[in-house]
């Protein structure tokens, strides 16, 4: 039982982070608070993917050492961390900032038109 908890508690912490972002997205009234919640949610998902790549037991960074780079002996795969999720998450971080910029632009536009950032006042003004 204790071994099960030690093997899995990292995933539970990531899920707690994800749910904090989700709660802010669906429950907060202010638009900037919703965008902050979206940022936390995306960061938690990227954290989950990066943690998949991690290998216990002495694995190093995904950069070849000098001995391996010159082909002196066969490369052992368990020595290096899995590089593929890192590459996909580099793309995801840049896309995250792009969505953040568009969301903030829409929030500024709404403020120019309705002079408030609260969601219920905007809905009241729309009616």
């Amino acid at each position: 039982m204790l071994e099960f908890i030690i093997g899995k508690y990292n995933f539970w912490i990531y899920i707690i982070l994800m749910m904090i972002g989700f709660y802010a997205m669906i429950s907060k009234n202010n638009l900037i608070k919703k965008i902050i919640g979206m940022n936390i949610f995306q960061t938690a998902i990227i954290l989950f993917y990066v943690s998949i790549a991690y290998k216990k037991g002495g694995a190093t960074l995904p950069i070849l050492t000098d001995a391996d780079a010159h082909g002196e002996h066969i490369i052992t795969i368990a020595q290096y961390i899995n590089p593929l999720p890192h590459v996909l998450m580099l793309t995801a971080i840049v896309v995250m900032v792009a969505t953040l910029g568009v969301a903030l632009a829409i929030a500024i536009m709404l403020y120019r038109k309705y002079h408030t950032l609260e969601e219920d006042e905007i809905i009241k003004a729309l009616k």
Partner: protein
Amino acid sequence: MTIPFDLIIQIFVIICAIAAITVRDLLSAVMILGAYSFFMCLMWAQMGAVDVAFTEASVSAGIGTILFIAALMKTTRRTKD
């Protein structure tokens, strides 16, 4: 019993996330979000994803915070929740 290093950073990250969505001032919330991004970057560097950590520190904690502050300067920093 020694506490592992990553557990300490994870606790800090959760505290920063809860503080960022509960504080009643938007500029403080954005600043706490920047601290959250830097703790996340530290966690990724500890996991061995150095390229992702560099990108997070420059793009998300730098440009993201600047975008947030620029948006707050054009709107307001007051909030009800």
